[in-house]
């Protein structure tokens, strides 16, 4: 504990709450309250209804939720495969090669996602790489955006992995592929799991690149929230936002419940 006096501790809590409540908690609370209201003209909302939710979980909205879930799942799996592979490969490179690869995979983080969206749009709009107008262009953009995070978290985990495991396995006669499959990947599983959660959450909330790319039959939930609020249907938008938030949290919770044997180390 950094602060020892009782008074100091109380003031630390007070500062924390003073910052946390208005910045983080209140906006979320407002959305939650708004999603149950029909009218908000005074200081407090009025007219309780669950009608927004009835709409939010059927028809086009449900379609949007499924689209978001599928996109996030696909992007996470692809990003984990590409980013994880690259991180493992980078580890066996010399330091210069590793730095180049590190920088390369940082690019999508450094470049604004609007730019990534535009780049993907331009790149895949002409034959033979004509993906514009299909769901794949959305998935590709999301994959590009989240791979950086997969690369980084797996890379950090690979660096922490004790080389003694790999060497013990090799001395027992295991070829590198066997070592990777039976020793390294299982030991990296907790980090891969965490990376998957991060990628999933990022993809679920992605809007700026998506909005430039989505075809009419592949409309993710953030886009429908945006269009709802754009139309002025704030309360419908709020209900959709709560659904998005809740679903993402549920998936993350589920992922964190997957305990691997290696977690017990």
């Amino acid at each position, binding site marked *: 504990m950094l602060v020892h006096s009782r008074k100091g501790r109380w003031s630390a809590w007070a500062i924390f709450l003073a910052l946390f409540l208005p910045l983080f908690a209140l906006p979320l609370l407002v959305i939650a309250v708004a999603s149950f209201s029909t009218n908000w003209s005074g200081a407090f909302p009025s007219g309780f209804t669950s009608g927004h939710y009835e709409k939010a979980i059927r028809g086009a909205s449900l379609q949007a939720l499924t689209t978001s879930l599928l996109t996030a799942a696909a992007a996470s799996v692809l990003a984990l495969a590409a980013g994880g592979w690259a991180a493992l490969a980078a580890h066996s490179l010399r330091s210069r090669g590793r730095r180049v690869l590190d920088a390369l995979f940082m690019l999508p983080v450094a470049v604004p996602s609007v730019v990534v969206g535009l780049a993907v749009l331009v790149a895949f709009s002409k034959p033979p790489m004509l993906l514009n107008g299909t769901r794949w262009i959305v998935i590709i953009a999301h994959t590009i955006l989240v791979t950086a995070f997969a690369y980084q978290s797996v890379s950090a985990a690979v660096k922490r992995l004790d080389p003694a495991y790999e*060497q013990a396995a090799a*001395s027992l*006669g*295991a070829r590198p592929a066997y070592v990777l499959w*039976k*020793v390294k990947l299982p030991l990296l599983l907790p980090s891969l799991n965490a990376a998957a959660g991060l990628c999933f959450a990022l993809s679920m909330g992605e809007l700026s690149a998506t909005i430039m790319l989505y075809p009419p039959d592949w409309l993710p939930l953030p886009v429908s929230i945006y269009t709802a609020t754009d139309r002025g249907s704030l309360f419908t938008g709020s209900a959709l936002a709560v659904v998005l938030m809740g679903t993402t949290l549920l998936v993350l919770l589920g992922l964190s419940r997957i305990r691997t*044997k290696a977690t017990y180390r």
Partner: protein
Amino acid sequence: MSAPAMTAAAPAAGTRASGIRFEGVSVAYGDTVVLDSLDLTVEPGEVMALLGPSGSGKTTALRAVAGFVTPASGRVFIGDRDVTGLPPYKRGVGMVVQQYALFPHMKVEDNVAFGLKAQKAPRGEIGGRVAEALRMTGMDAYAGRYPRELSGGQQQRVAIARALAIQPDVLLLDEPLSALDAQLRAGMLAELARLHRELPDLSILYVTHDQVEALTLADRIAVMDKARLRDCGTPQELYRRPATEFTASFVGNANLLRVAVADGAASLDGTRLEVSGDVTGTEGTLCVRPHLVGLGDGPNALRGAVTGLQWRGSSHRVTVAVAGQEVTAEVRELRTPPGLGDEVTVHFAAEDAHLLPQGGALRG
């Protein structure tokens, strides 16, 4: 001991016994030489201890056999097979390291079966060989546990079982007991000795900085310092007749006295001393073990003032200054120990006083 010419003798028909041979093996990281042209032979079935302080190159030598470091020059043989360029997984060595490196996500039996499965041993054989390896290390009751549920000593046994399960020609042990407490270590030493009696064909290269482990377990000890092999011989040879000052002080405690040499005897401060060893030349270094030095009159008596006194329960360590040099005697607990500054006489037998060879020529 002279260099054995029949290195890695052809194994008798039907056995797979093979030793290890280093031929001028050097390893360097950048400009730092960590192993300097090592020539050493481990005979089939022999336990060779690589003994030295940290940074002496002993672990590098072991890792060169396992294939985790590539020699800048020289060759490494396992039996008659030149393994210098082979990847680790093709070498067929068992290895046990200080931190065990048991796979935490596998049960004990799966850890032990790992090498067999990796080498695609026939399915029907695996169970029996795993059980046998666990029996030999006394871990059969723990087959279904995870490594985290075992104590350090038990984990080390599993690591040894895992290495033995692949029935390696040679077993490499890298400071296998340093992570254990003193009591466990003594038990494991006895256990390793018993294992080797059970597997007489297995050659063992045992890296340690602990002279007790080396003296207890090894058939021969290779003493290393500053990337070089300094001395090699049986524990008795190294202890009784060390070839270099480094060996004398590193393998057991030693009094090292500068003496003048003349007429086949040494002299210190004008006192003639009957000694064994190399009595040529005009001066030399005399090595006497503290526990072989007695208090009171006797042959080779030297007189001096007491400069140090330590009570060690069953014994006293008395340090005496003789002509500016210190002689330590380790004697059975004294009823009336001398005080600091008292004049006492110490003595030792001629056969316990070993004059180091000139120039400290290397053996082995």
